[in-house]
């Protein structure tokens, strides 16, 4: 069921945006795996078996993305994920990525929770800082033609409300997805927008460790 045709990685170093040059550039990266959509061209009621099979795909992609960004895990401050489903598929096929994509990055970044509980939709009580990557992984998905762009949202890995780190990265794989393909995407960055100055919660002031603030 898992058939990876292409892997596309992209890493950006942003030095300035017409303001002062950053001492350390913002690093943003994304990885897209182009897979055959096993459900293309028909309505399949039970698509859940694919979700579990995507777990190792997500883990491999998260590690590849971190390596391509060439920064230590400790510097990864935001994450996001997405999917672009080819024309013979449906948006719900892209939704299969929520659990395997999100938890692959969360585990890479130091999350200590129970993936199986999340898969079943069970939340956990959080207090103090049980680990890293406490925030929900923001996402977008759509059905599109080859070369369709997807703006993948990025937010802080521990507190979604860190305003200076609200960002997004545009991902586009030339030539994909074909009608019977899906592009599954992971994205991460080293944090603050290069000229962030609209205030709000700072990462160093995260206090609740509830994934939000």
């Amino acid at each position: 069921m898992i058939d990876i045709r292409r892997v596309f990685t992209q890493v950006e170093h942003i030095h300035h945006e017409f303001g002062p040059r950053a001492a350390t550039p913002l690093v943003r990266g994304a990885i897209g795996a182009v897979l055959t959509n096993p459900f293309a061209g028909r309505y399949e009621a039970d698509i859940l078996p694919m979700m579990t099979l995507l777990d190792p795909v997500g883990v491999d992609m998260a590690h590849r993305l971190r390596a391509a960004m060439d920064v230590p895990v400790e510097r990864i401050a935001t994450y996001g994920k997405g999917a672009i489903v080819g024309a013979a598929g449906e948006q719900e096929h892209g939704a299969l990525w929520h659990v395997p994509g999100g938890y692959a990055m969360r585990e890479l970044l130091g999350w200590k929770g129970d993936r199986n509980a999340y898969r079943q939709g069970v939340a956990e009580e959080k207090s103090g800082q049980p680990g890293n990557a406490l925030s929900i992984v923001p996402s977008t998905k759509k059905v599109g033609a080859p070369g369709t762009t997807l703006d993948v949202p990025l937010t802080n890995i521990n507190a979604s409300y860190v305003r200076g780190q609200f960002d997004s990265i545009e991902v586009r794989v030339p030539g994909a997805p074909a009608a019977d393909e899906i592009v599954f995407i992971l994205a991460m960055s080293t944090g603050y927008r290069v000229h962030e100055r609209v205030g709000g919660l700072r990462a160093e002031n995260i206090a609740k460790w509830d994934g939000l603030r």
Partner: protein
Amino acid sequence: MSANIRKLIVQVDETRKEMGQAINPPTRRAVAMAVIENPYAGRYSESLDDLIAIGEELGALLGEKCVKALGIAPGQAQSYGKAAIVGEAGELEHAAAILHPKLGAPLRAAVEKGAALVPSAKKRGTLGTAIDVPLGHKDAAFVRSHFDAIEARVSDAPRANEIVVAVAVTDSGRPLPRIGGLQASEIKGEDGLR
């Protein structure tokens, strides 16, 4: 003068399967892009020396970025190409100044040898304009399996006073070459053609 670089972007495109056929080892193509300020934007300048110097700087920087992203030794590079997209306040000759006089030598150093011409493309464009960077074998331009192209595109560039400069390097030809012609295994690599 050195380039005022706003962004650097490196992409790697790895093909493991094409038309149901496994590609082993996968074909891998890298493209590195720099978004720079155009020092001649909005005016006619007879001399384009600053852009010529920037071309030399970027040939090394972008060539090395590609090789590093592919994770290969320089001598394992097989094909290359270059391109530039000039923002609206610039002219096509600005792209030529970056690409043609001095970019090639440091790029060839980054990929070892490089007897063949570095194929190129240029155009004027705006934010998100895509350019197809032509690819050809680095030591023998007639190697038919390595005629290819890879898209370069930056979502927020070039602004009117910017230029997007792209260099592409691969460690392979097309995924399933089968249209004959000169084979990579047959080249002499002396005249840059065969």
